[in-house]
């Protein structure tokens, strides 16, 4: 067996051709990455998706697919939609805290100006 096969071809137990679509993005030292993406999307779908993209964008596409696949493996029900939900909740909470702090600043500034006015009188 060719020791230089990419992780995808090793997983699929096939020869790794020179123009293998997976080899730039799935090095042999990280087999779990391809296993995860294959489990969720399937090798054929990933191959089709990468082939439809320009060369220079495939690396980012592979990374984002891996990220989404990992999220789905970790959370089979919500996947990375769960993360979106958490972020939106966090945004809402922070906006509420911001509004509260701005109100507190307004009150403090009012008290400060009243203190200054009474000092001058």
């Amino acid at each position: 067996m060719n020791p230089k096969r990419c992780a995808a071809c090793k997983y699929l137990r096939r020869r790794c051709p020179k123009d293998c679509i997976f080899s730039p993005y799935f090095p042999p030292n990280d087999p779990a990455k391809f296993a995860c993406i294959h489990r969720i999307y399937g090798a054929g779908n990933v191959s089709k998706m990468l082939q439809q993209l320009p060369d220079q964008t495939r690396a980012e596409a592979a990374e984002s697919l891996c990220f989404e696949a990992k999220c789905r493996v970790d959370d089979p029900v919500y996947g990375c939609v769960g993360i979106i939900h958490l972020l939106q909740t966090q945004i809402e909470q922070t906006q509420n805290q911001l509004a509260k702090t701005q109100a507190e600043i307004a009150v403090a500034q009012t008290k400060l100006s009243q203190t200054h006015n009474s000092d001058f009188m």
Partner: protein
Amino acid sequence: MSSSGNPSSSGGGGPCGACKFLRRKCVAGCIFAPYFDSEQGAAHFAAVHKVFGASNVSKLLQHVPEHKRPDAVVSICFEAQARLRDPIYGCVSHIVSLQQQVVSLQTELSYLQAHLATLELPQPQPPPVPVSSSGSLQALSITDLPSISPSVYDLSSIFEPVMSSTWAMQQQPRPSDHLFGVPSSSSIGGGGELQALAREFIHSGQMPAQPSPGTSGSGSTVIKRE
């Protein structure tokens, strides 16, 4: 897409949306039937099939408890449609833009809390705010601060408690390749909220809750690796 749990399989009602798309007989107990009705379900299933594949989705759903399957189908449809709209980043671009929004808001909050602390000191301190031409004090804004570039895929901050961090801490660079540092979010019980979110996305044809440009110094949702 129907997530009411009513089966759409044949028995009088015709095939479900998935079996219609796959042009196969919709058997009793079809795993897709409760979630893909025969009208709009076929269109939603087309996206799911193109991205994930029917057999992969079937396996995914079989490993999910039945009462959680509607939520799983909604999230799978959401991801599939996001990936078709953005073949490079899928819904990760939305995650990154939300993450930038969180960082921006938390930085602004830290700044305001520091300002509040100076106002509440016993000795009167001159407030470090610009004064508008009308003479009234302007609200502090994120544009007063230097811009911050959050790293990609570093979602560890999402799961820290929502608390004020010092403005200095926000300036620290984060590790750039903190891939997959995401704990499980399966504790989310907001099924109704999730479905509302996904329906808003699916029916309106665009991502919900996009940040306005210039909020964090960069309105683009293009992911940049550091």
